[in-house]
């Protein structure tokens, strides 16, 4: 509460009213109680002899009255903050913070409710003697209410008011407010109604009207989903929770992919503890994930903010990969290809391949030739060969029971593939040319090479699949998966959730559905403020506010109005001192020290 926006006359009127109240209280205090006595002469004699020497009894009440009056006026002055508003009248621009932290609640009331109440009060007062404007300080500041002298305009402006899920940009909002004051031509002031202060100097006098008190919250501080590099076709969802409380907290964490529950666990967090959890082993072509905290219990407190209890992530769909498998028959290879979630495999025999024309092969992304050579005259940009019978790679002799002495683990094909203690019966030895990458080496022999040229990508494995235990290992499907991806140039990047405040681009005419499934207006797509999963055509994009999760402080705890003029609250100290004097006077009176 503050009287800062009131004129001097209004402040004087309030002070006068307070003085009247004090006077009334004083008179009530001085109003005697009637009492019938037998004879007042004895009382008068007693009063004559017990009159104090230093202070006459008649002066004491008056002194007490004056002290009371002075204290009341000092309190009025302190509340009215005479440092602010001196010779500054006219335009008032109220900056209303609309960031996610304004949704924090305390005893059933959110900070934004408190702030809007303050704004209403200030608009009512400031429109009496000037114009008022309200700037919404969300992630991108905007004018919520243009300069007006009609306080009812505010209600219309607040009709669809919602908070952003990201932080408020108070500096930009103050800059905008300062510009509004400057453009109004006269003197003015900027009132910042927020739960924190910022170091930003405005031309106009700036006053902070703080709202909110520090609160406890349990937050999701990170949530990602990605393909599992160690398991073909599977994905992993990782959640990081943090307790922003000095008390022990517990909550239930659920990770959902639509209606499918990936994780449901009850957790207990110590003060400040960070917990990392992951849900894996799920295979899906695409996923739209939601992590949500529920049943939050904080000892002796409550979870103040709901916006940080939810996070979103999207697992983009894999591009379909058309594979032509030419093999005389290999169950292991067929099974490994089947594991690949987006592979569309067509199997043909060697004779069928010979009858194919080159143009027909272009319909496939990858050719997989098992113990088969690519017929002369046919070419393809992505070929994966296992034990080719004769090839330009192959040297004269096969290696018997070779031992793997080196592997290029950094190559995308071998990432996460473990080949240690691999038993190999026979393997082709390849002739290495310039530019070839030897993936598997046994001594000086190259058992697997990757070649990338203008003609395309070739990946050649010399290990006979029917004479090795590689096919029985978990590494084999992953190796095939990696090999297909590398050969076909397929991207396997997992985009992180988008940051709130970033734009969401859509092609002209493309409908964008918001988190609630309602179509979004194009104006709102330039800066996304609400977290959730948006759908642009067939594409899903997750906007999550996890990076903004932080402790719920209040920049100005205690609710005192703070002015940009850094003067100490001297009047408050004086008022306290004089209040102590009143208490002393009261105590002395009742102990009979004074009369």
């Amino acid at each position: 509460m503050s009287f800062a926006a009131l004129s001097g006359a209004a402040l004087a009127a309030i002070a006068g009213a307070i003085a009247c109240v004090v006077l009334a209280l004083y008179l009530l205090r001085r109003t005697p109680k009637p009492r019938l006595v037998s004879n007042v002469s004895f009382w008068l004699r007693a009063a004559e002899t017990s009159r104090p020497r230093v202070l006459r009894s008649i002066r004491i009440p008056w002194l007490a009255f004056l002290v009371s009056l002075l204290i009341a006026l000092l309190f009025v002055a302190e509340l009215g903050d005479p440092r602010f508003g001196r010779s500054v009248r006219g335009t008032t621009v109220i900056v209303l913070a609309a960031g996610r932290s304004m949704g924090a609640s305390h005893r059933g009331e959110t900070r934004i409710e408190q702030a809007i109440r303050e704004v209403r009060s200030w608009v009512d007062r400031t429109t009496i003697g000037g114009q008022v404007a309200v700037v919404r300080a969300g992630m991108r500041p905007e004018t919520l209410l243009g300069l007006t002298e009609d306080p009812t305009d505010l209600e219309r402006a607040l009709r669809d008011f919602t908070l952003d899920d990201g932080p408020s940009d108070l500096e930009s909002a103050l800059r905008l407010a300062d510009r509004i004051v400057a453009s109004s031509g006269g003197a003015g002031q900027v009132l910042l109604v927020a739960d924190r202060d910022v170091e930003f100097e405005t031309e106009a006098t700036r006053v902070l009207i703080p709202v909110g008190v520090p609160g406890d919250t349990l937050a999701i501080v990170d949530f990602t989903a990605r393909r599992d590099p160690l398991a073909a076709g599977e994905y992993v969802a990782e959640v990081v929770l943090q307790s922003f409380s000095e008390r022990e907290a517990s909550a239930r964490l659920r990770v959902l992919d639509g209606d499918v529950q990936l994780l449901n666990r009850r957790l207990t967090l110590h003060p400040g503890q960070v917990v990392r959890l992951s849900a894996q082993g799920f295979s899906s072509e695409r996923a739209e994930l939601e992590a949500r905290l529920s049943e939050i219990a904080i000892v002796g407190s409550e979870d103040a903010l709901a916006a940080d209890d939810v996070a979103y992530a999207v697992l983009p769909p894999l591009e379909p990969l058309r594979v032509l498998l030419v093999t005389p028959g290999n169950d292991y290879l067929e099974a490994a290809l089947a594991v690949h979630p987006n592979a569309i495999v067509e199997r043909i025999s060697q004779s069928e391949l010979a009858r194919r024309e080159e143009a027909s092969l272009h319909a496939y992304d990858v050719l997989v030739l098992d113990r088969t050579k690519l017929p002369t005259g046919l070419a393809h940009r992505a070929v994966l060969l296992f034990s080719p019978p004769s090839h330009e790679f192959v040297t004269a002799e096969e290696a018997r029971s070779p031992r793997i002495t080196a592997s290029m683990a950094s190559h995308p094909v071998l990432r996460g593939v473990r080949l240690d203690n691999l038993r190999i019966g026979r393997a082709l030895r390849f002739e290495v040319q310039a530019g070839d990458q030897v993936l598997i080496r046994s001594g000086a022999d190259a058992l697997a090479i990757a070649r990338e040229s203008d003609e395309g990508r070739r990946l050649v494995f010399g290990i006979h699949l029917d004479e090795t235990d590689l096919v029985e290992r978990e590494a084999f499907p992953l190796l095939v998966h990696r090999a297909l991806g590398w050969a076909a140039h397929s991207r396997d990047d997992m985009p992180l959730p988008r940051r709130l405040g970033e734009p969401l681009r859509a092609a002209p005419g493309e409908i964008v559905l918001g988190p609630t499934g309602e179509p979004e207006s194009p104006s709102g797509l330039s800066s996304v403020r609400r977290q959730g999963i948006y759908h642009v055509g067939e594409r899903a994009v997750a906007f999550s506010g996890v990076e903004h999760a932080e402790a719920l402080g209040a920049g100005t705890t205690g609710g005192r109005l703070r002015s940009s003029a850094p003067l100490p609250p001297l009047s408050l100290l004086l008022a306290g001192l004089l209040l102590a004097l009143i208490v002393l006077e009261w105590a002395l009176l009742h102990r009979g020290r004074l009369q």
Partner: protein
Amino acid sequence: MALLDSKARRILDRMRLRIRSNATAIRAGGHRSPVKAAGIELADHRPYVSGDDVRHLDWKAFARHGQLVLRQFEEEKDAFVHVLLDVTGSMSCGTPPKIELAKRLAAGFAYVGMREHDRAQVIPFADELGGPALAVRNSHELAALEHALEKTDASGPTAFAHAVERLAARGVPRGLVIVLTDLMAPEGWEPGFRRLGLMGHDLWLVRVSCKDDEAPSVQGEVELHDAETSERVRLRVDRALLERYRREIRAHVDRCREACRRAGGRWIEVDVEESFDVVLKKVFAPSNGGVA
């Protein structure tokens, strides 16, 4: 409710007023007279002188000693009992009001006097002395007195010395003067008592006190209304002033007690919060001149 109920009367039936012998009257009554004459109780012998009533000669003594001696008897006389009842405004204070107890005591004195064939009369006083009242000699007169007392209100200022002057001016016969008062006036008591003593009256002072007079419990801003003069005084009462007031009251009562003693009077204190039985026993206690 009657001033004297049956229980009070039963108590009073056992009581007597012990009046100084020089304050008795001339008619036969229940009190010893200093005159030794035609009584029934032998008091002394004296030699016969010419003119004495020969009926009182002690012939047996003459037979034994050969001297004429006269038997002397104590004569029992009645007494005048003047009950001065304070009906000033201050007597309306207290819980219950002091006047209520005073009126009952006045009736009680009258009842005992009636029973002892004394001529008791109750005379109210404030700044003036009330009209002469008939002496109570029988139950009818006692009932009339009770009726009159019940209609008596307490109001007006205190002028005890003036009231005593008026009493003297009426030429009331010497007797027992019982003053029923709260003494809540700063002046006039000492000359009044002295005058009563000089008039030869046997003086009893029954002080009716109450807590509101002795130790009032009031603090803060008060407006004091004088019950006698309607004067209003505003004061801020604190503990120091209360203590000072109590000292003032104590000093005043002590002065009155001393004046009463110098006038040969008896001092009795009763409190309105005491039961009437206790008050009666206290007033008529042997140490106070009564006989239980």
